[in-house]
């Protein structure tokens, strides 16, 4: 369920880092908690985002939820498919439902994130 090579936050985002580029999304747990997702506001390419700060907004039928950047850096691509098919976050949160790709400016930030084991343990505590 929670890929081994991803890292996670307690706010239920994931990041998958490859060659200094982090692909970011929300976890399957998060999409389940939010319910039917009907709108995603993705960050503009070129925006600088900071770890822990709002960088996207995901809206379910019921409410809008801010998504926090798990790592700092510059947005190099955002998932344009979400404009027409926001439900990808429900059906495939860990892959097709990615939100944005960020060129990491502080790669060591990744060390502060949760491993899949720790994230699932954290979910278990809740």
């Amino acid at each position, binding site marked *: 369920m929670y890929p081994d090579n991803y890292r996670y936050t307690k706010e239920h985002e994931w990041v998958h880092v490859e060659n200094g580029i982090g692909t970011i999304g929300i976890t399957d747990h998060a999409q389940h*908690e939010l*319910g*039917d997702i*009907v*709108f995603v*506001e993705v960050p503009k390419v070129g925006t600088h985002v900071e770890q822990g700060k709002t960088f996207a*907004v995901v*809206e*379910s*039928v*019921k*409410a*809008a939820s801010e998504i926090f950047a798990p790592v700092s850096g510059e947005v190099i691509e955002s998932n344009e498919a979400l*404009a027409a098919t926001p439900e990808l976050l429900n059906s495939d949160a860990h892959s097709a439902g990615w939100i944005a790709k960020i060129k990491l400016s502080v790669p060591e930030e990744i060390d502060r994130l949760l491993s899949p084991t720790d994230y699932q343990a954290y979910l278990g505590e809740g």
Partner: protein
Amino acid sequence: MALLKTPLNAVHRSLGAKMVDFGGWDMPVEYRGVLDEHRAVRHGVGLFDVSHMGELDVRGPQALDLVQHVTVNDAAKLKLGQAQYSALLYGHGGFVDDILVHKVADEHYFLCVNASNQDKDYEHIAANNHFNATVENAGPRFAQLAIQGPLATGVAQKLTDINLAPIKRYHFVDGHFGGAPARIARTGYTGEDGWEIYAAPEHAVRLWNEILTAGKSVEIIPCGLGARNTLRMESAMPLYGHEIHASITPWEAGLDWIVKLDKGDFLGREALVKQKQQGITRKLAGFEVKGRGIARDGYEILANGAGLGWVTSGGPAPALNKNIGMCFLPLSLAGPGNAIEISVRGRGVEAVTIAMPFYKRAR
């Protein structure tokens, strides 16, 4: 304070519902998902536990006089077995609550009120009871299940010997439902045909299961408060605390049709007459979002950067495939066809006022 629970609380949990604190009640917000549940009610049938709703019984030789005094609609026009949408107002003309008044007998009126307003409504009516009548906070005696959707009547009919087809909208009968004594009302809060069943709490779990079994062939599903909200919003039905509250009058909320100034004196009448003479300055309007974004409750309406009003309810309209809402606007802008701008997280998003209701069922 611990959350209040309906008799179906354990059933909701066993069905895997997401539970939320709704005005102090631990209620299911969704089971399968709001969109599926919304669609089920628009095209088939859904079942809601609305046992959190409050009930008040007004009885006695002057029961009608008390009801007439505290409500805006004309309860004297009700026939036995008929219900009407009405409201309780303060003396200044603002809403205490919106309610359904049922005429059970000449000396017995049954009021269905909002869950979180139940105690306030009871106290309000009791404080204004200068009549030979009694008021009972009857909520604890009733569970309430709502069977809603175009296929609701077929499902409900399987559980009662009473012929439901001739019962008109906003009418009810007292009889047996699933073997339990019940009040069976053709009312609802979804904009669809449907039934609201009032019965003693000890029957709630069995009735719930029997309704789901009776509806199995037409794929009935349990529905939560999430779908209840999107359904009522599409139908432009007001929600207390949003479209109506103590600082809003019926004229402002567009509820002129429930106010019967000619029925005689009632609480709030004087203020309403005065406001009618002076004219209102703001009014509830419907809107459709044209730009990219969803307008949510409380968002500001802007014109040239200045605040014009606020969104009272907003979100996606699943049956219409667009983002809609209701808002208060200056009277001059409240009619359909006016361009407005809604502040969505600090960004102006274009919208246009449109006529309500947004959705109307085929008859």
